């Protein structure tokens, strides 16, 4: 047994870490969040140049064929730096579906995603609280017309194409639609963590047969796998946030003096930070377990991703809330990174099923 990263994986981690630490400045990020832009297009081009946008695509599709372990490495570092660029929607969710599908035109689209010139968003959610994505109300009629409204489409404002889950007859289908097609309307909203998501409505949008990516059990399988992978990615992101939360809190309490001593001298704070550390280590353990299961495509992979996401929902919020508490007033100030980890944690808990949902999925 060896639970260490391979040499290549260590190199990848160092490369991403170096970028996040030296070039991804939090204050620049904040300027972008407060501007009309949803993300920094220069950073996105840089991701493309580094090959990060091609990372998870298979070699046949022109990618590096990296798996869930490398993606987890990437997202853990993204979590620490609170990266807002829309990697999850285009590369992970849409990219994974396209890559594993037998869709005829997939290579052209994947190439555009890898080069950074095109965003594709997966429209998987509808106005329900139930996290059941395989029974959409959006429908594709016998005469090829798409009707319905999708909610919470990540990065929808920048997408040139949408992959839309819909029902076609009694089957689930995944279709791809141009965002400027007749009958498509997009309204965008800010997310808690500084990104954007959209509500996308389809009114009698004509979908040619060639734009049906998959249907029936194949569509079901593609959708669930992509969402499972994305769930792993945001959980890895949460682990990164948790690591930063305890490290930054330790650093702060050592430098903050009250009652003529650093507040890290107080045992109650020491134990709280130890709890934050332990929670972060436990999540990291479940992350490693889950990514290995996904990597080997095991039967139990959904279950282990659920275990991870369930734990993240609890431990992640705990860590971020304690980080805020131990930073005192500074913790709730918008100027410091620390409060933004809490916002990130809220977002992650809301995505793809919260803790309760995944506890239930795990036990089924």
């Amino acid at each position, binding site marked *: 047994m060896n639970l260490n990263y391979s040499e290549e994986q260590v190199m990848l981690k160092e490369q991403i870490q170096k970028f996040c630490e030296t070039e991804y400045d939090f204050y620049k990020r904040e300027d972008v969040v407060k501007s009309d832009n949803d993300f920094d297009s220069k950073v996105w081009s840089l991701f493309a140049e580094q090959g990060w946008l091609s990372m998870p695509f298979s070699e046949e599709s022109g990618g590096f064929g990296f798996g869930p372990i490398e993606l987890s490495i990437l997202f853990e570092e993204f979590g620490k730096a609170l990266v807002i660029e829309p990697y999850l929607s285009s590369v992970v969710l849409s990219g994974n579906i396209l890559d594993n599908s037998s869709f005829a035109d997939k290579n052209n689209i994947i190439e555009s995603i890898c080069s950074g010139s095109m965003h594709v968003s997966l429209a998987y959610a509808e106005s329900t609280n139930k996290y059941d994505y395989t029974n959409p109300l959006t429908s594709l009629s016998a005469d090829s017309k798409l009707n319905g409204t999708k909610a919470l489409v990540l990065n929808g404002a920048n997408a040139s194409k949408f992959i839309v889950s819909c029902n076609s007859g009694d089957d689930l289908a995944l279709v791809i639609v141009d965002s400027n097609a007749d009958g498509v309307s997009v309204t965008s909203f*800010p997310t808690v963590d500084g990104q954007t998501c959209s509500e996308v409505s389809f009114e009698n949008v004509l979908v040619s047969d060639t734009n049906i990516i998959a249907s029936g059990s194949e569509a079901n399988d593609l959708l669930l796998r992509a969402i499972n992978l994305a769930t792993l990615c945001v959980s890895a992101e949460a682990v990164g946030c948790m690591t930063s939360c305890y490290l930054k809190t330790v650093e702060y309490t050592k430098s903050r003096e009250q009652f003529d001593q650093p507040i890290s001298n107080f045992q109650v704070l020491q134990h709280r930070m130890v709890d934050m550390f332990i929670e972060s280590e436990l999540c990291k353990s479940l992350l490693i377990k889950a990514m290995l299961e996904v990597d080997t495509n095991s039967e139990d992979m959904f279950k282990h991703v659920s275990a991870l996401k369930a734990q993240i929902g609890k431990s992640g919020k705990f860590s971020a809330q304690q980080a805020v508490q131990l930073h005192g007033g500074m913790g709730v100030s918008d100027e410091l990174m620390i409060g933004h980890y809490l916002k990130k944690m809220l977002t992650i808990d809301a995505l793809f099923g919260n803790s*309760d949902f995944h506890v239930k999925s795990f036990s089924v």
Partner: protein
Amino acid sequence: MDINFTQEDLQFRDEIRDWLANGGYPTHVKHKTDNGIALTKQDMTDFHKAVSAKGWMGYNWPKEHGGTGWSATQLYIFNKEFGLGGCPPLLAFGVSMVAPVIYTFGNDEQKKRFLPDILEFNTWWCQGYSEPGSGSDLASLKTKAVREGDHYIINGSKTWTTLAQNADWIFVLVRTETTKIKQEGISFILVDMKTPGIEVKPIITIDGDHEVNSVFFTDVKVPAENLVGEEGKGWTYAKFLLAHERFGIAAIGTSMRQLKRLKNIVSELDNPEMEKKVAELEISVSALEMTELRLLSALENGGHPGAESSILKIKGTEIQQTLTELFVEAAGEYALMYPGPHGFESNSKPEGPDFVAQSISAFLNMRKVSIYGGSNEIQKNIISKFVLGV
């Protein structure tokens, strides 16, 4: 034992309910608080003026200074009913912080000058306590006041000053003498916010709102007559004031109202896990309410509950925070969206439950309650020292 309020107390409660329900509580303000819309300075003023017009502004003052002279039980009922009625919290800085210091330790001139305006809500006050280097350890404060003839010259800075942007006056703790024991040498001074040399800079919090500020003092010249009580006795007054701040800290009425809202929402979700969490929270609220009543009973029957009241701060704020967490959970994946503290624009609201924006805003905003007014860690130190005696 008798858990019931007296007939007089019940009549008093009904009088408050009647006022709240029948036009006392300004309808335009009620509409906003009911719908989670942020209040403007004018809304806050209208609300306070209405309370003042009813004669309730001096809710915790003795009659001789123009207050209501209410018993502890009446004060409890007043606070609970205002919470249940969905009122915004009454601003404490004037009426329940600086005023008791003025009428207890101030001179007649100061009482005449400041108290009537506080009762009529003609002046907004803010609190100059915390400094960048002095939070939990408040007595280490460094803002300095030097006596020069008939004036004090103040230099230094205060932080986390709530609503300083609206304030006409600030009461500040300043160091008038450097002493071996840091609690000595502190004085309590009233400062007109229009005095040259005062600069207010906003601090934006994680909910995106502007509620708190930094206040900088550069050679601010304040008449010596604005000193309250004796020079160097400020720490005594500060502690006295913090004891008054405990009023309503459990926020039981507000929490009960929010709990009712939450129960309505969760009953529609068909979600047994959420139902369990709400039930557990309801038990906590019940335990807190009964704890507050026990302290009240002790007070009304000649007891002197002291540090036990820290339980109210700790559990009250925990409940307030848990409530906001459960609202966010009830929003499910819609909790992803957050338009900022002022909500979605009415012409472009997304699908999904209408309480989303308000819930996230409240969740982020309520992080402060376990930090301010003596952090919950400090409260536990107080209980440990003064109740457990360790």
